[in-house]
């Protein structure tokens, strides 16, 4: 036996504060985005189904946090990112892309707005250094550029990489509230502003909603009972389920991880590795950078045009306006056979002519079948007309069928 995907650069990899805890739980550790991360503890399928039915706890501390502050932070982010940033309500999140000048996607991000002068960008682990360098360079360039009326803009902005200082846990699944609500107390506007507490990093300025009032993509500052740890907690996630993402001081991640696991029976919670994180996000048809997105793919190709603001100028907008037609079209498909499609395998039409490539391919634990996404690069092909097509899985031509995502909502 020979595992073709083995990736053992563990020695050079960074570790999250939970690395030893993952090992003690018996996790299979893999190298991902320069980090040694748990792929699964016991079973990707069991962990996946437990998130769909109950709840799961994820260590996603490898993800990046970049904090942007200052009087000009909002207009700066409006220019660097594609979505409207400065105009969203405080204590809410928006999804956005960051593009290069050609309109290619540098990364996809979520942005937390704490006030008009304080924002946090949450970045993919593999892209954090690249994103930080790009955003910081844009800031320096803009600060040196005189406007038409001889003014210098963007003078009051700071961009700081907090990725090593902030830990991130995610609790996902329909029963997540059964474990999070009892463990958390609202501290609303009484958080320890005068002390050196975690939420002070972000300069909240407006009324903070209580945890139970949070709608999707809203966040609050709370304290975990007994362990007395402050956290920024958002109603968000990457699974297609109800859930929370919890930002805390990196030094406290271990304590919070143990605290949540000690109460796992409240929601039948299991620790969940990156393997199920990927199958969950893919069933929910959420894009993953490196698969559905990269610098050669435009937001139109990926079907993400709704995140391109029409209200403002941003880097990459000019290039995108010159693009008349989509260069590639993203489709989702399922397979009748049992072999699993993998990234970059060829898509063949009914005459076995190559028309595109697999973006993501995996096994759907919920539907118990192989599923995938693909970019169709042949401009003559209309995805909705695609009837008989095949995936070239190591020389086997496996018949595929176009489906409308998300896969976890498909009625059987």
């Amino acid at each position, binding site marked *: *036996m020979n595992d073709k995907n083995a990736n053992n650069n563990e020695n050079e990899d960074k570790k999250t504060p939970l690395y030893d805890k993952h090992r003690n739980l018996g996790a299979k550790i893999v190298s991902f985005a320069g980090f040694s991360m748990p792929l699964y503890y016991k079973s990707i399928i069991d962990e996946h189904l437990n998130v769909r039915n109950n709840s799961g706890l994820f260590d996603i501390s490898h993800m990046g946090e970049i904090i942007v502050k200052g009087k000009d932070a909002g207009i700066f982010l409006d220019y660097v990112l594609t979505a409207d940033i400065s105009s969203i309500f405080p204590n809410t999140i928006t999804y956005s892309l960051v593009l290069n000048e050609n309109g290619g996607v540098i990364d996809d991000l979520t942005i937390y707005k704490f006030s008009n002068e304080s924002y946090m960008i949450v970045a993919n682990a593999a892209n954090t250094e690249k994103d930080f360098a790009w955003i910081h360079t844009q800031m320096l360039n803009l600060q040196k550029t005189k406007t038409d009326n001889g003014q210098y803009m963007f003078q009051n902005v700071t961009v700081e990489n907090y990725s090593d200082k902030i830990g991130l846990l995610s609790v996902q699944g329909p029963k997540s509230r059964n474990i999070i609500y009892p463990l958390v107390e609202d501290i609303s506007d009484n958080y320890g502003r005068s002390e050196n507490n975690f939420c002070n990093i972000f300069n909240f300025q407006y009324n903070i909603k209580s945890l139970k009032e949070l709608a999707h993509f809203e966040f609050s500052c709370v304290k975990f009972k007994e362990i007395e740890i402050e956290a920024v907690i958002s109603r968000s996630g990457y699974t297609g389920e109800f859930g929370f993402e919890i930002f805390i001081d990196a030094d406290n991640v271990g304590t919070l991880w143990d605290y949540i696991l000690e109460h796992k029976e409240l929601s039948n919670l299991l620790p969940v590795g990156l393997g199920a994180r990927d199958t969950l996000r893919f069933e929910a048809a959420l894009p993953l950078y490196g698969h559905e997105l990269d610098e050669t793919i435009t937001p139109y190709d990926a079907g993400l045009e709704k995140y391109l603001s029409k209200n403002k100028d941003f880097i990459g907008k000019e290039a995108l306006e010159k693009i008349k037609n989509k260069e590639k079209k993203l489709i989702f498909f399922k397979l009748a056979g049992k072999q699993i499609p993998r990234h970059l395998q060829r898509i063949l039409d009914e005459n076995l002519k190559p028309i595109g490539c697999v973006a993501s391919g*995996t096994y759907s634990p919920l539907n118990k079948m192989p599923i995938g996404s693909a970019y169709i690069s042949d401009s003559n092909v209309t995805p909705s007309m695609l009837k008989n097509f095949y995936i070239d899985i190591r020389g086997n031509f496996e018949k595929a069928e176009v489906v409308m995502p998300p896969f976890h909502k498909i009625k059987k």
Partner: protein
Amino acid sequence: MADNSKFYFAKSHEWISLDSNNVYNLGISDFAQSELGDVVYVQLPEIGKQYKKDEKIGEIESVKSVSEIYAPADLTIKGVNSKLNETPELINNEPLGEGFIAKIELNNPSDLSSLMDKDSYESFVKSNHE
């Protein structure tokens, strides 16, 4: 002489064990299945076909990866475990039992001596993978 409680392991993590007469069961080790994770598809070898040692006889696909199964010795496929078509997770649940992959005959029974017994295999895994 081989007895049927005895397992013989290859460095590529397959095992064989005497079933009856000259027919052996072939499977993958507990270590191998734990490295693969949830098995969702097994491409079984062809019945009647002869394979040389180290030749690929099939594939095991888990949620995250694909692995090849190699012949641990020169052999002939006498049968396959067709239960794996419907329940490939048998490989995870009982890698040394119900999760066997094929029934084989050794072309040269003396090849057994080139394989490892359970203790040697376990120390081989320990020294190479920990």
